[in-house]
């Protein structure tokens, strides 16, 4: 598909990256001089904890948490400085050092802090700090807690580098860094084969996406001769429409890998093998949103290619529905939440594909999602903590009495994600639905309808999770089918303060963030200088869209209520219709990947091996065998009889003499 789109667009006239306001920056001064500290603090933590080894076991978790919180405070200081600065001075550039400087190839290590990266810095360090605190309690009994915190710090540093880099090459370093941290943390319990496999799967699928980013950077360098934001995204970059489309599609591929978007979505569900704080931080709030950041950051490039933007929205729309459908059938609480994450990021990607109409809302939903999804995951972790690490929701039920704080915080996160009026998700998701309709034309209607349907599905699957976990009969009191002899009933209990505190803070965020963001359009105004903003023209009024969205949400929640509250939840999942079976198997994503990629790949390698063994090795080996065989036959001439040698000498001499004589005569 990429090929045809590129060639279709290559005929287009020269296009410039116009539409957005362009990216310009001023050198960092004053407080902004400290920008590098945001990255350096967690990096220091990772270095100390990894190099210090067992000696740091005793205080490792405290050090890691302290540095993450420290980084958050530096972020806050930067934020307040940015609030004081005028719009023109809010985009600052800090040159750290030259990385590679060869001829026209200039790679710089420098940071770029503007309104967009500021949002990410606060989200990453803020949610990151909370999850560090949560992990102190959650990982208390794990003997490798120090290593866990080292990896978390490494992740924070890489993610911050990703959002603060001032050129694509440095961004790529952060991009790979978060991939590495994600791999290490998914496989943190590598003694479990499933965790080790999941880590490998995530790593490999991410590699496919990373290839896209690499190619995009190559294309940028050959087209523009540079990959620094200042020049590529300044709005003056000149290239043909086809080149822009090519770069954009490669960036989209990268985003798909990192953000678990169709068709590279299969790794996210398995990534839930990692410890729950990891799922909350990396696979819900921050890393998986890197794709959205990449697209929003590259707004100038995407604005220049409507074809690529259309592909982005299609990918987003498919993933929105894909995740939502899978989420409806999962019984594993973390996998249900993972499917939901995929779907919600689909919303963001879709919004980012809408161009200036949607960028700001994509980021807004990203932030509110960061709050409520991290909160939901932490809640799920808290439930698992109290239930002997049980993840099957069919083994839960009626837990609200035993875990009141978890119930309330999870409940608020739940209300926020389904878009209960006036909570965070309501505002951010509503804006995306509006923006989708505002795209105009048939595609606008299609995208708007998809987001509406997905809103209903979201309400359905989240209500299902909520009801199965906290309401209904206490199914965990009965022994499961095929329980081991030493099975004993779990004793659900509320988690320690270090775990509930972050959940409470995130619950506050889930409730109020959205309202604060839309108040006076503050969030959109904040981002407009970076991403640009246009109203679009919606066929429906704001109220009509809101009304439809709320109706869909109510419908979804109602269906779930009828199915899971009015009826008994069976302890063993019923057979279900073919849709349920398909959704339970992630819509056969693994089978498809296996059939389309893995098996052909295996056949290809087998064929190549055969070709190598029989063809190339066969030729070389055959030649050697031929020569060897011939010479072992010719060898027999050496009889060892001196007389026969003498005879041949004599014969030879006679021949030479005869030949000489003949030559004389002639």
């Amino acid at each position, binding site marked *: 598909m990429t090929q045809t789109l590129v060639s279709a667009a290559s005929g287009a006239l020269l296009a410039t990256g116009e539409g957005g306001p362009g990216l310009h920056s001023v050198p960092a001064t004053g407080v902004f001089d400290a920008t590098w500290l945001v990255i350096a603090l967690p990096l220091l933590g990772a270095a100390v904890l990894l190099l210090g080894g067992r000696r740091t076991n005793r205080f490792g978790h405290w050090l890691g948490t302290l540095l993450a919180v420290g980084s958050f405070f530096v972020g806050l200081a930067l934020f307040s400085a940015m609030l004081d600065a005028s719009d023109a001075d809010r985009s600052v550039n800090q040159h750290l050092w030259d990385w590679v400087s060869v001829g026209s190839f200039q790679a710089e290590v420098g940071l770029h802090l503007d309104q967009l990266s500021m949002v990410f810095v606060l989200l990453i360090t803020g949610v990151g700090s909370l999850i560090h605190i949560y992990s102190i309690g959650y990982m208390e009994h794990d003997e490798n807690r120090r290593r866990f915190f080292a990896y978390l710090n490494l992740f924070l540093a890489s993610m911050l580098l990703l959002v603060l880099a001032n050129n694509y090459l440095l961004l790529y370093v952060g991009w790979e860094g978060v991939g590495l941290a994600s791999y290490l943390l998914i496989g943190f319990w590598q003694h479990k084969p499933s965790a080790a496999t999941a880590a490998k799967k995530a790593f490999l699928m991410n590699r496919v996406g990373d290839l896209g980013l690499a190619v995009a950077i190559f294309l940028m360098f050959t087209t523009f001769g540079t990959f620094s934001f200042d020049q590529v995204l300044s709005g003056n970059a000149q290239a043909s429409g086809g080149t822009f489309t090519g770069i954009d599609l490669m960036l989209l591929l990268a985003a798909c890998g990192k953000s678990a978007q169709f068709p590279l979505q299969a790794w996210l569900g398995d990534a839930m093998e990692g410890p729950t704080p990891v799922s909350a931080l990396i696979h819900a709030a921050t890393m998986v949103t890197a794709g959205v950041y990449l697209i929003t950051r590259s707004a100038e490039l995407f604005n220049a290619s409507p074809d690529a933007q259309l592909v982005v929205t299609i990918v987003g729309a498919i993933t929105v529905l894909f995740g939502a459908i899978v989420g409806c059938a999962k019984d594993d609480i973390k996998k249900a939440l993972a499917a939901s994450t995929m779907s919600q990021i689909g919303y963001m990607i879709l919004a980012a594909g809408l161009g200036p109409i949607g960028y700001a809302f994509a980021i807004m939903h990203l932030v509110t999602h960061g709050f409520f999804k991290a909160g939901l995951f932490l809640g799920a972790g808290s439930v698992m903590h109290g239930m002997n690490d049980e993840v099957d929701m069919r083994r839960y039920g009626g837990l609200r009495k035993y875990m009141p704080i978890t119930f309330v915080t999870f409940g608020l996160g739940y209300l926020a994600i389904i878009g209960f009026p006036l909570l965070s998700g309501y505002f951010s998701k509503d804006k995306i639905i509006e923006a989708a309709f505002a795209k105009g034309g048939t595609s606008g209607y299609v995208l708007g309808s998809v987001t509406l349907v997905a809103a209903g599905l979201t309400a359905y699957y989240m209500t299902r999770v909520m009801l199965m976990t906290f309401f209904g009969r206490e199914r965990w009191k009965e022994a499961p089918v095929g329980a081991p002899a030493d099975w004993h009933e779990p004793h659900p209990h509320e988690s320690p303060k270090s775990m509930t505190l972050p959940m409470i803070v995130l619950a506050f965020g889930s409730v109020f963030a959205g309202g604060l963001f839309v108040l006076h359009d503050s969030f959109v105004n904040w981002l407009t200088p970076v991403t640009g903003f246009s109203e679009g023209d919606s066929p429906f009024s704001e109220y009509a869209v809101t009304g439809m969205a709320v109706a869909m949400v109510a419908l979804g929640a109602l269906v779930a209520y009828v199915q899971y509250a009015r009826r008994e939840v069976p302890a063993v999942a019923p057979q279900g219709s073919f849709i349920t079976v398909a959704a339970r198997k992630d819509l056969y994503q693994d089978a498809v990947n296996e059939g389309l990629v893995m098996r052909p790949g295996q056949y290809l390698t087998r064929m190549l091996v055969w070709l190598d063994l029989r063809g190339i090795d066969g030729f070389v080996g055959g030649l050697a065998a031929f020569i060897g065989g011939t010479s072992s036959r010719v060898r027999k001439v*050496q009889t*060892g*009889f001196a*007389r026969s040698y003498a005879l041949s000498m004599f014969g030879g001499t006679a021949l030479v003499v005869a030949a000489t004589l003949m030559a004389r005569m002639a």
Partner: protein
Amino acid sequence: MNPANYLYLAALLFTVGAAGVLLRRNAIVVFMCVELMLNATNLAFVTFARMHGNYDGQVIAFFTMVVAAAEVVVGLSIIIAIFRSRRTASVDDANLMKW
């Protein structure tokens, strides 16, 4: 006397020597046949020198004798060494250098 007769004699001697080298097994006899061949060539050289009226052939005949003397010393000592270790002087038994 016709000098060609000397040449016929030399050819005859050479042929006898060559046949001996190729046919006999005893190393000593083979050795003597080699000497016979050398002397046949010496005779031919001297004859040619006489026919052409210069001394080149005669000089080479002296060289051949000197070399033959040296060769006899080396050859005989090899034969004796082989005889001592293998208790035979047959050239066909000394076949260590075969394939």
